[in-house]
């Protein structure tokens, strides 16, 4: 604490700010970003986040490879993206500055831990001269702050060793940014005592560092002003901040309740899907059984077994895991049992970019099994939408007795947004009945059970679970006879069964195509999955500039809405931004002979609004 009277700094109102916290992967940047997000959410701002971290748990300290970053955009208006370029960069060391500076808008603020700009750290980051001195930061407003030293001084009174003291410097940064954007102090103090409960010295050190950061902003004559971002006019109600993976886990639990079925998850840890396994493992009081299998195949196979037994079964994974599960999913298609496969897509092929998003598993979801093996596909569009998408995937799986692929990605998985909590009572009933009695008769007029006798409306077969008297039956991967389910190698029967399996999936009822933006536009942006936010923001920008633009975003990718071909054919020009090499474009071209223009990006970073805007303008202006 200082006895200097607080300066009266002007309070400037801002519509939005995009802050990127960047440091070593051990510096606690994700925690810092998360906490800043929570405080801002509670203040009523709209927000969107974009965490970015290396695949290594602790990459070599001070190197570019080890930089971990967390971008958060807060605003007083409704937003759908974490923003194209940060207006504020908090860089904890030279590597963080070097890795992130090019992202920052010209004239943006750079707040640096000047203590970290030592010769050795500069060298590790590959700087030949000190960017604080050589003019590299010209064109930005740079604020060097001796974060390490002030933190050490602040925590010294609590008897913390200097080496441990350094660990609190992320809270110093958080304190400083909290002051700068007039965030209240109390929620973070509360957070620190809960988060580090039982470790008193850590609590004291972090509190002291946080306060020191806050006071530094107030007293150091470094900053010209501080800022206020008013609450956004969001629809009224109760909100929480969720990441896509948490929303998926909660969606799975909700689906179990809506279907009145116990939940089983068979999973093998894989980035970036493991958090769903973690979240569901902690929800045993909901009757959720989780099974960490010996491999991806066993994870899927255990789900097939659980589904046969009458559970609502899931398996969660990422692309490499889906590849391994392929044969088992073929079995699930053949058995016609309900289950949901959640694929959190990441860069590939092979191990690829484990912590970076991609949308390149669409073709695998569609066709990545041997033979004709159709599977419905559902893709959420935002972190909060993951909740509804999980319920939708379960609805389809249960009603049509089929495995369903839910395609999320690494961006949705880890980024977050405010979510207006749904009214639980308004969620759909997705319950189905197990078969309880015979559904046919033999030549002698006796009741028999026909496991592949289909519901004429849905073409779903009966779900008769072990324990049900009289309905003993065998299912298997060998082709089976229509109705009886007995092994059959009969050519005509196989032709018929291939047709029936395809017809069942094709006929799944899904909502009609929704056209957002200008429904009477001649230009349309088509998308699916996590590009929704960036496309939505692009449409708003183009409309402001006087263009007419429509936005069609597919959530059901197999089957697609019945009217989608017709709707898309009504536009003169269509572009489709995807984080792949044109997979939805290929599907649309093949299905509807429509000349959709691909806009592709595969660098592990989500589309920015600017990128889609440029592609859209080029398309609009093209002859």
């Amino acid at each position, binding site marked *: 604490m200082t006895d200097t009277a607080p300066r009266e700094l002007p309070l400037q109102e801002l519509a939005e700010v995009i802050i990127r916290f960047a440091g070593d992967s051990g510096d606690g940047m994700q925690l810092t970003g998360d906490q800043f997000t*929570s405080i801002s959410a*509670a203040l*009523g701002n709209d927000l969107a986040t974009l965490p970015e971290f290396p695949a290594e748990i602790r990459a070599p300290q001070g190197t570019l490879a080890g930089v971990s970053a967390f971008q958060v955009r807060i605003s007083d208006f409704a937003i759908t993206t974490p923003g194209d370029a940060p207006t504020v960069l908090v860089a904890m060391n030279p590597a963080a500055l070097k890795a992130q500076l090019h992202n920052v808008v010209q004239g943006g603020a750079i707040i640096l831990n000047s203590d970290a700009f030592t010769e050795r750290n500069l060298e590790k980051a590959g700087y030949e001269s000190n960017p604080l001195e050589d003019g590299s930061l010209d064109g930005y407003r740079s604020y060097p702050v001796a974060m390490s030293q002030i933190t050490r001084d602040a925590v010294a009174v609590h008897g913390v060793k200097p080496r441990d003291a350094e660990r609190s410097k992320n809270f110093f940064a958080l304190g400083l940014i909290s002051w700068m954007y007039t965030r209240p102090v109390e929620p973070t103090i509360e957070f620190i005592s809960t988060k580090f409960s039982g470790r008193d010295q850590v609590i004291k050190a972090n509190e002291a560092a946080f306060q020191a950061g806050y006071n530094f902003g107030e007293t150091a004559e470094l900053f010209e002003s501080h800022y206020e971002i008013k*609450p956004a006019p*969001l*629809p*009224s*109600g*109760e*909100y*929480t*901040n969720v990441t896509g993976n948490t929303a998926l886990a*909660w969606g799975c*639990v*909700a689906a179990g309740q809506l279907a009145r079925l116990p939940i*089983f998850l*068979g999973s093998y840890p894989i980035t970036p899907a493991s958090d769903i396994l973690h979240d569901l493992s902690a*929800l*045993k*009081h*909901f*009757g*959720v*059984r989780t*099974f960490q*299998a*010996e*491999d991806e*195949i*066993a994870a899927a*196979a*255990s*789900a*097939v*077994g*659980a*589904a*046969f*037994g009458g559970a609502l*079964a899931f398996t969660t994974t990422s692309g490499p895991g889906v590849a391994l599960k392929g*044969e*088992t999913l*073929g*079995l699930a298609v053949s058995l016609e049992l309900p289950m949901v496969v959640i694929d959190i897509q990441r860069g590939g092929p092979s191990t690829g970019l484990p912590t970076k998003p991609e949308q390149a598993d669409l073709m695998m979801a569609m066709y990545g099994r041997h033979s004709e093996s159709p599977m419905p596909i559902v893709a959420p569009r935002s972190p909060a939408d993951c909740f509804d998408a999980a319920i939708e995937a379960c609805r389809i799986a249960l009603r049509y007795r089929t495995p369903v692929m839910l395609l999320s990605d690494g961006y949705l998985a880890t980024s977050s947004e405010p979510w*207006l*909590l*749904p009214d*639980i009572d308004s969620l759909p009933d997705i319950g189905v009945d197990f078969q309880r009695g015979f559904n046919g008769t033999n030549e002698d007029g006796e009741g028999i059970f026909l496991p592949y006798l289909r519901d004429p409306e849905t073409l779903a077969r009966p779900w008769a*679970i*072990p*324990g049900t*008297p*009289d309905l*003993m*039956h*065998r*299912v*298997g*991967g060998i082709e089976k006879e229509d109705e009886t389910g007995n*092994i059959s190698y009969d050519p005509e029967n196989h032709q018929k069964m291939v047709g029936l399996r395809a017809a069942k999936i094709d006929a799944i009822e899904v909502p009609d195509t929704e056209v957002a933006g200008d429904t009477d536009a001649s230009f349309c942006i088509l998308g699916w999955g996590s590009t929704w936010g960036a496309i939505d923001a692009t449409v708003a920008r183009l409309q402001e500039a006087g263009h007419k633009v429509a936005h069609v975003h597919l959530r059901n990718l197999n089957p697609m809405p019945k009217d989608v071909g017709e709707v898309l054919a009504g536009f003169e020009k269509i572009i489709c931004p995807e984080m792949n090499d044109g997979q939805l474009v290929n599907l649309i071209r093949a299905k509807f002979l429509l000349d959709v223009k691909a806009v592709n990006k595969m660098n592990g970073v989500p589309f920015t609004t600017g990128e889609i805007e440029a592609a859209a303008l080029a398309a609009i202006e093209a002859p």
Partner: protein
Amino acid sequence: MTDTPMRTKPADWATDQEVRWCPGCGDYSILTAMRMLMPELEVDRENTVFISGIGCAARFPYYMNTYGMHGIHGRAPAIATGLAMARPDLDIWVVGGDGDMMSIGGNHLIHALRRNVNINILLFNNMIYGLTKGQFSPTSEVGKVTKSSPMGSLDAPFNPVSVALGAEASFVARTHDMDREHMMEMFRRAHAHKGTSIVEVFQNCNVFNDGAWEGLTKKQNRNANLISLEHGKPIRFGADDELGVIIDNGVAKVVPIADVGEAAVLVHDEGKTDPSTAFMLSRLASGPFEPTPVGVFRAVDRIEYATSSTSQLAMAHNEKGSGDLQSLLRSRGTWQV
């Protein structure tokens, strides 16, 4: 057994499907043993499930009038694990051959065994790939000449009982397709065991590996080469019980009892917590031409997997009450707009 009539007859456990194994296949006698055993177990068909992978043995579920699933190659233990966790009330049998269980499904097998999930695994070992028409299997002897190994196979074989013991199996037994009574006894014991039980069945493939087990299982060879393990009894065999098994310097050996004296003969203890002696017994023969033990190698109590899973659910329920969706959605903090 009581005098009350059994609830079912062996025929009740048969389906109307034509059994399509090759005439003379050892699988027929295993199927018969299973159908004959079922009424004795006093279980209901609707609560019994047979799960298999791929291979000749894997057709088994189609011939049992229970619930059943013919899955994919090697994955039956994993499918059964999911079912056993979701439905601990069921009686679950897994049937597979040596290729299914020891090769493509080896990983699932060992993990099922270490977890001790309540399933009964029957491993039909004929030391050959039958359904794919005669390639060497992971239990074939080195030098096996087959279509895929015209100059003899290079692979050292697995000994399924040794593998199972190494994988922490709590129940391990071995039997053969020429002795229905013994098979029924081993299946009965496997069924009674809570946890994963595995029974290796020496099974003859009369088309691609005919007579592979003859050195042990043919009537005239049994006295000399089949050692019947019986809990609490000295391990002895031979036409006049003149041979015995001793442990010599950490190795099980066959010796004339006259040479070592009755007291030196190993008394079989299937309930021994330490699996070392059982493992030594599993190493007694190096192939189907030497004295080979059959019977229960190991039967120990160990907590069953689905039971543990269920008690965690119950504990969570006790601590946190039954899950409430509304409060789950609020669990990370909320704010009002």
